[in-house]
Each structure stands twice: as structure tokens, then as C-alpha cells.
């Protein structure tokens, strides 16, 4: 053993990375299908009436959100953890047999669970709690998978050479702790079969919360799921990949510490903005609204730190499509964290709630920030995992522009659709009679739904180009270790 020099071991990263791309294609394909269904309802039965149960919008929607968030995003987060974790702690997974086994079991259990989840959602087995749709056996399985990751983090930290934990590690730890807590509390449920002495399906359960309490717990969970799955681990990634790829130190390490604590403190209180004008107490709504507005500060703190990291180095943004992905990603992060607080103001929310503007907000964050950052991270890791250059730079640049166009079409159409919808729903004459019936709004929105579907399709096409580029990278020109210092090597 001693004669071989010590190297980082990326075998677990590789598994998660490949699975992430696969799940990304699946989740986005379903998203595109949903988008076309909203524009042309006939698409609901595109496989015929017989299979309509499995192809209709309501059956597929949870498949989209779960495959994307807990599939594509989490799998990428883990790919990046097993990569970044080793590097900034300066310790190799190969140094500990236990950690290697933990990592592999983590992946294969997750792989198995993903499969069961897809089948169960298609079969219509769900608890009907948004983003927590899984029944109790799966919830238990997820807890095990999550704890395995936690052991992996603790183990790697325990044998590290670098004493101080780099800022990305803080964000990964926060992700681990917060999601563990959210998952446990939101999924407290009673298996009906066992509680009733044998009535109904064995896997069925009911939540321990009901009514307003349920709403409160659900959105405390839901909002922080956004915070700790779609935000903190992605910040963990950008704090490593942007400095590394550009060769520039973070503009201000202090600002990163500050934004971290700011985000932790503020995020947990903002969930009330999902429940404005509902039956939850007024003070919860006001607090949610106030904390949402304050949330701009730590969010922009991180994003500005990223943009300033490129200070004096903007030619790199022009030259490298990989850095373009990250810079546009942080710009979209700023964008959605400005849009969110605006939507959280009560008078704005009165128009925005229940409309397509919310869906637009979700996707400028999801496609622009999360999607782009994950794509950039994978592009950066691929040459290091396979010791080869990225197959094609021009393909990457083309992908960038196609997807950017897709995002712009997606959110602009949803803005117009959402605000039109909100205004039409509340329009009334001088006697208080509603000016429009629901179907009037549907007719008006049709063109915007079509534009969104086109935008989504473009984004998917870009993602397939990405998958192809990574696939070809595995057989591209081999590179030397020295070419992998900073900017990733790319073929023409």
C-alpha cells in the first residue's frame, strides 16, 4: 500500500454523479410533459385512455417535484459532497475502509429507494403532503439513508488533516442537520393498518397533525426544504467550485461567515409567507413577511461575494462557458431572492398567491440557480473524475445559450400569466359581482402556457446536450494532473 501515493477516491462521487444526470433527464422530461399538458389538455392521455391513470397531470406532478428535488438535486449534492468534502478536509476516502463502505451503502440504498419511490408515485400511493408525499415505510428508509450520510460527514471530519472547516463544509453540515429535523417532524404519522388492528393497506398512514397545525408544520417544513435542499447545499457548491475553477480566492471570507449565520437565523422564521391570509395566527403571517424581507440581506451577501470574487477577472466569464453557468447562477439567485421577498409582502401576495407567478418564481430559482450551479459543478468534477478533458467547449456554450433562453421564456411567460390571473380573479364591478368566470382566465392564459412549454423544452434539450457532453468526456483526450489545477481543460 505504502508505495502508491495517496490520492482522493472519487468512486462514490462517480456513482452519484451519473445517477444525478439520469434523474435530471427523468424529472425534467416529466416537467416538460406537465407543461404541455397545461397548454394542451389532450396530452394527458398521450398513451391512450387505458393508461390515462398513469399519464395525467395530477399523477405526474409529484413525480416531477420529487424526481427533481430529492433525485436530481440531492444526488448532485451528494456527488459534490464526496468530492469537495475530501478535498477541503485534505483527506482521502481511501484512508478509511469504513467510510468507503458507508459511502457505497449510502448510494445503493438511495438508488433502491429512488426506484421504489418512482413506482409508488406512479401507482398513486401518496400522503398528499406536498414535498413529503412518501408513505411511512419510505420515510423510515429515507431516515436511514440520511443518517448514513451524516455518519459519512462525521467520519470524514474526524480523520481530516485540515483543522479548520471550510465554509462549504458548514453549509453541508447545516443541510444535514436541518433536513434531518424537518423530515422527522413533518412526517410524524400513524400507520392506520397497525393502529386500527388490520383495516386498509399496510403502507397507509395519516399525519399526526390536522387543520391549522398541519398547515403550520407543513410550511415550516416546506419553506425550509427550499432553504436546505435548494439553497444551502448549492451555496456550499458555489463556494468551492467558483474559486477553484477561476483560481480566485473568495472576495471576502468574513462575509461568507456572516452570510452563513444570517441565513441560518433568518430562514427558519420565514415559512409563514406561504400561509398569508389563511387561518394561521396573524402574528405568524406578519413575522413570516418581515423575516422574508430581511432574508434579502444574507442571500445577497453570498451572491455578491460570488460576483465580487470575479473582480478584475471578468474576461474569464467571457472566455469560459463553465464560469458563465456559475455567474448566471448567482445572478438568478439574487433575482429569485429579490422576487421572493416581494411576493411575501401581504398586498403583493394577495395577487400572487395561487397564481402562475409563484410557479415562475420557483423555476427562476430552480432552473437558473439550482440547475445551472449543479451543471457547473458536474462539468468541473468530470475531468477530475475521468482524468480527461471536457469533450466539447462549443457544445457547452451552445447549451448555455439554449438553456438561458429557455429560462427567460419560462419565467417571463409565468409572470405575465400570473399577474393576469391574479388581476382577473379579483376584478369586479361596482356591485361586487366578479367580472370574469374561471374559464375566461384559462382562455387568456393559453398562449403563455405554450410559451412556458417551449421554454421548458429548450431547457430539457440543453440538459440532454449536457448529458451527451459528459458521456463523451469519459472517452475524450486524457489530461495530465497539472492541467487540472484551476480552469477545467476543454476540447474544441
Amino acid at each position: 500500500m505504502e508505495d502508491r501515493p495517496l490520492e482522493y477516491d472519487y468512486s462514490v462521487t462517480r456513482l452519484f454523479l451519473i445517477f444525478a444526470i439520469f434523474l435530471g433527464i427523468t424529472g425534467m422530461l416529466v416537467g416538460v410533459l406537465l407543461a404541455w399538458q397545461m397548454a394542451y389538455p389532450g396530452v394527458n392521455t398521450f398513451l391512450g385512455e387505458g393508461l390515462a391513470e398513469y399519464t395525467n397531470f395530477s399523477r405526474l406532478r409529484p413525480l416531477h417535484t420529487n424526481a427533481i428535488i430529492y433525485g436530481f438535486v440531492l444526488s448532485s449534492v451528494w456527488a459534490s459532497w464526496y468530492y469537495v468534502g475530501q478535498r477541503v478536509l485534505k483527506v482521502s476516502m481511501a484512508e478509511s475502509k469504513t467510510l468507503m463502505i458507508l459511502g457505497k451503502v449510502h448510494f445503493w440504498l438511495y438508488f433502491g429507494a429512488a426506484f421504489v419511490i418512482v413506482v409508488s408515485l406512479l401507482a398513486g400511493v401518496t400522503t398528499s403532503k406536498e414535498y413529503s408525499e412518501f408513505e411511512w415505510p419510505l420515510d423510515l428508509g429515507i431516515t436511514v439513508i440520511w443518517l448514513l450520510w451524516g455518519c459519512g460527514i462525521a467520519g470524514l471530519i474526524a480523520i481530516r488533516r485540515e483543522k479548520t472547516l471550510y465554509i462549504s463544509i458548514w453549509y453541508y453540515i447545516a443541510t444535514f442537520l436541518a433536513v434531518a429535523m424537518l423530515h422527522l417532524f413533518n412526517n410524524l404519522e400513524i400507520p392506520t393498518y397497525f393502529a386500527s388492528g388490520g383495516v386498509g393497506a399496510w403502507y397507509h398512514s395519516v399525519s399526526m397533525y390536522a387543520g391549522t397545525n398541519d398547515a403550520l408544520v407543513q410550511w415550516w417544513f416546506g419553506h425550509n426544504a427550499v432553504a436546505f435542499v435548494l439553497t444551502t447545499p448549492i451555496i456550499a457548491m458555489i463556494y468551492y467550485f467558483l474559486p477553484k475553477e477561476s483560481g480566485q480566492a473568495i472576495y471576502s471570507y468574513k462575509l461568507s461567515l456572516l452570510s452563513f449565520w444570517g441565513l441560518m437565523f433568518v430562514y427558519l422564521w420565514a415559512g409563514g409567507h406561504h400561509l398569508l391570509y389563511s387561518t394561521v395566527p396573524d402574528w405568524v403571517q406578519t413575522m413570516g413577511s418581515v423575516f422574508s424581507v430581511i432574508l434579502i440581506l444574507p442571500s445577497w451577501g453570498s451572491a455578491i461575494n460570488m460576483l465580487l470574487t470575479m473582480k478584475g477577472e471578468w474576461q474569464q466569464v467571457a472566455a469560459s462557458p463553465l464560469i458563465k453557468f456559475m455567474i448566471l447562477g448567482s445572478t438568478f439567485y439574487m433575482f429569485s431572492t429579490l422576487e421572493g421577498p416581494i411576493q411575501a409582502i401581504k398586498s403583493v401576495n394577495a395577487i400572487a398567491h395561487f397564481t402562475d407567478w409563484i410557479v415562475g418564481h420557483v423555476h427562476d430559482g430552480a432552473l437558473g440557480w439550482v440547475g445551472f450551479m449543479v451543471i457547473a459543478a458536474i462539468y468541473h468534477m468530470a475531468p477530475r473524475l475521468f482524468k480527461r478533458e471536457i469533450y466539447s467547449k462549443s457544445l457547452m456554450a451552445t447549451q448555455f445559450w439554449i438553456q438561458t433562453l429557455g429560462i427567460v421564456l419560462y419565467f417571463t411567460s409565468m409572470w405575465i400569466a400570473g399577474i393576469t390571473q391574479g388581476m382577473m380573479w379579483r376584478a369586479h364591478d361596482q356591485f361586487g359581482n366578479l367580472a370574469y368566470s374561471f374559464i375566461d382566465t384559462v382562455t387568456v392564459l393559453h398562449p403563455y402556457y405554450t410559451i412556458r412549454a417551449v421554454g421548458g423544452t429548450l431547457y430539457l434539450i440543453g440538459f440532454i446536450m449536457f448529458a451527451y457532453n459528459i458521456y463523451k468526456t469519459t472517452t475524450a483526450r486524457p489530461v495530465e494532473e497539472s492541467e487540472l489545477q484551476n480552469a477545467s481543460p476543454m476540447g474544441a
Partner: protein
Amino acid sequence: MSIAELQSYGYIVALVFLSVALYAYIYHLYVQRKDSDGHDYEDYSNMALKDDITDTPVSEKSKKK
């Protein structure tokens, strides 16, 4: 005092305490250029840039094998 009043006072106290703590931390970071180990905070950025397994750690964990 009713429970609602108690709650509101608690809320204000928590809010003030946490805000003071956060600002104290900001103040601490900007006055103190270095942490207790004597490292300039900005040196820690190098953890991402010099991250080969053979690179010297910014602050080495004491070896006690």
C-alpha cells in the same frame, strides 16, 4: 400576565438578543482580523485553492498518532 403577553415579551427579548449577538459577531469579525489561532480569516480561502492532498493545510490538525 396572559400567555399571549408573555409570548410577545419572549419574542421581543429573543429578537433583541439574537440581533445583538449577530451584530456583535459582525463587529468581532471586522475588528479582529485574525482568529484565536492567529490565522488571518482571509487565508482560509486558500482551503479551496490549494486542495491537493499533498498541499500543506492552512491550519494543520495536531498529529497525535
